């Protein structure tokens, strides 16, 4: 298939190349990415961020040498000054004005939707916690059940029992956060299969989160929107450590380990 000379003229022109690249990038980000396996829609804040980056790249491309820059500006200048393009000029100016008006309207109109959520998912743990009156230092704390390797299988089985009695409704049979109550929560319960949750954390961090639940989250970074109860009110220390063993065993993740502390470390 040969390109018509007219089409070729457009394809070789930096202005139309720039416009084409922007449209293509938008289509890929908004419609292409969600089609990929395991993907979902891209939030508008990220679309904006990506498009600004692409726009900067495109502007650099068209202006990094004088010839291309002059060519790029040609249609813009022509549209703004040439008599034959009067109709196009009026149309473009009208569209730009309407677009600005539309964006402004979008910013000021009232809506019933909840505002965008600026939530950090890694709360900073305290240095120490009190568990049923007992003070525990979290830094450097290891799962005590791992000290008894001969009983590890039994502890894991015990943890599984605890999990199915208490955690299953929210975190699900597959530990993927899709239990039968999950649809009622926003955000969804934590997905332990994801490499962004327990795979990134030490067991002491997981212990703290399980023990203190939503109410025990730090004040900084609120709102946390966590419906998880304080499990220290229902489970013993040993039961929580056992369920943590089960979580890592079942998902195949290894808990984050502590670095060897040097002088000055806490």
């Amino acid at each position, binding site marked *: 298939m040969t390109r018509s000379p007219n089409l070729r003229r457009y394809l070789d022109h930096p202005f139309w190349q720039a416009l084409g690249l922007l449209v293509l990038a938008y289509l890929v980000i908004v419609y292409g990415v969600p089609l*990929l396996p395991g993907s*979902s829609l891209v939030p508008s804040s990220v679309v904006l961020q990506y498009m600004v980056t692409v726009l900067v790249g495109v502007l650099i491309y068209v202006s990094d040498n004088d010839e291309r820059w002059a060519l790029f500006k040609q249609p813009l200048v022509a549209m703004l000054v040439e008599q034959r393009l009067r109709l196009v000029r009026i149309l473009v100016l009208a569209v730009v004005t309407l677009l600005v008006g539309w964006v402004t309207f979008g910013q000021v109109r009232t809506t019933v939707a909840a505002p*965008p959520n600026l939530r950090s998912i890694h*709360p900073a743990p305290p240095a120490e916690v009190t568990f049923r009156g007992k003070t525990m230092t979290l830094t450097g704390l290891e799962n005590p059940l791992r000290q008894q390797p001969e009983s590890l299988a039994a502890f894991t089985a015990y943890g599984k029992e605890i999990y199915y009695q208490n955690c299953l409704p929210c975190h699900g049979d597959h530990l993927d956060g899709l239990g039968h109550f999950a649809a009622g929560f926003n955000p969804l319960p934590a997905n332990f299969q994801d490499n962004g949750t327990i795979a990134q954390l030490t067991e002491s961090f997981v212990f703290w989160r399980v023990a203190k639940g939503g109410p025990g989250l730090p004040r900084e970074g609120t709102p946390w929107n966590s419906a998880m109860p304080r499990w220290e009110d229902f489970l013993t220390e040993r039961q929580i450590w056992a369920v943590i063993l089960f979580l890592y065993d079942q998902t195949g993740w290894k808990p984050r380990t502590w670095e060897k502390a040097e002088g000055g470390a*806490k």
Partner: protein
Amino acid sequence: MADGLFFLTAAAADSVRAYGEFPIIGARAAVWIAAEVHLMFAAFVLGVPMFAVVAEAIGIFGKEARYDRLAKEFTRLLLVAYSATAIWGAILVFFLATLYPRFWAYLTAVFAASMWVYAGLFFFESFTLYLYYYGWDRWKYGRAKLVHWTLGILLNVWGTIVMLIANSWLTYMMTPPRDITSTTDPSSIKLWHAIANATWMPINVHRLIANVVFGGAIVAAYASYRFLAAQNDEERAHYDWMGYVGNFIAISALIVLPFAGYWLGREVYQYDQSMGITMMGGFMSWLWVIQAFLIAVLFLAGNYYLWIGMGRIPGAERFRPYIKYLLTVLVLGAIVWGTPHTMIADSKELAAMGGSHHPLLGALGVMSAKNTAVNLMILTTFLSFLMYRRGNKELVVPWAETGTRIQTAMFVIAAGIVLFYGIRGYFVEAIVRIGFSVYQVLAVLSCILFVTVIDVLMARGAKSVGEIQWGKMPPRSQYALFILAVTFTWLMGLMGFARSGIRQYWHVWQVMEDTSKYAATPALGYASQMISLCVLIFLGLVAFVFWLGGLAEKSTFVSSGEGGGRHVGH
């Protein structure tokens, strides 16, 4: 009840004279502005002498007079900025003493002796600077010139020690030694024990490098302003060259800055895990998304300046076709680096994604992806610079082709290592993944080092295709230098807030609590506005100071009639 009343009364008595109030903007904002603007000026007056003294040395030992003139022009900027630094330093001290008197009393109790030394060194520094600048033309030749150069070195020595002392105060606030508690009598704390705290040395190194970056960027912005205002071609050529040198210094030092920052972050984690998580994964983590975006701007603007600059180098047009590929890597790198792990989304989007973590793009939000992106961006920037450097050279050594192939192989291997460990990082546990970043960095640094050595050897006796036509730069290239200076300044304020903000409601972490009404860590939106205000104040004052400098004295530019208007080297 009686007990409660007693404690309330005690607390009230305790808080009397603990804090002062500042009209309209409040005490915290007042101290914030004073500290930030002082720091920005201080960074400038510490960074510039470093390369002024190097430029003077090139002038002396390389017998290149234009470098000597450049060093003098750097120093002239320094002179006018120096008094601004002192004024803002004084404002900061007065604000601290009147608005946070109890905290100030604590700090002076611990650090009194170092404050006296600081004042003494400041005195020496000032007079060394005056001698250095005003003696420039008097001690111009022979041994006197070497003595003059020694003054420049001394200026750096005083300035660096001043910085080290001030750094000890602020790092003590962040990471006081663990044996110091809220009940420790401050006057009983050994001075060196307080100075040599966990983050003191990482901050010293980080700031030392950052000052060079910052100084280079501000000098480049000054040169671009003079370029745009130039009256003739010779003046334009001089300031074009000066802008190039400033930008070169800034970008070169920038390349090693992330490694120093990484060390600092590591020390913060080592000292206190919760402080580290607040900084990188907690509510401060949003600042790192902004930081990623701003650093991407730096990379893009720095490369853009080099690419446009190739237009003034005869022979460089042969490299032009490659630029679009380099740009593609940089844009993709910027996209990956800026992708947040936890995304800002409305309730519908959250429901569709199943949380604030995107099931696919979320993979780009973790350190494996980000380290890979930034290392590839550094390699790309280095490649841009190599092409720029080789622009007007025709290599004559017989092994030029082989050398270029080896260089290419080194780039490919380094990029391969970076990609390999980046991808492998997804399949190993966190503690192993952290170690991978070291291999990536080593691959990039080794590539930069060995490729540079080969390039220098290959360029021996190279034929020139034509001289660089300094001054033949379109105005838009100069705006790239402005963008660099503004972005560096903004970044400094932003990351300074992150470092300082992780103390949360403590003046001195877990030793002295902030009980003022400003104890809460400010919201990120408010912090961004404050940082922007500080940047505006600083840049406004810098513009004024430079304008004043131009009024007081003509530039050190010398026309070609006096034998130096044209600059042909790199």
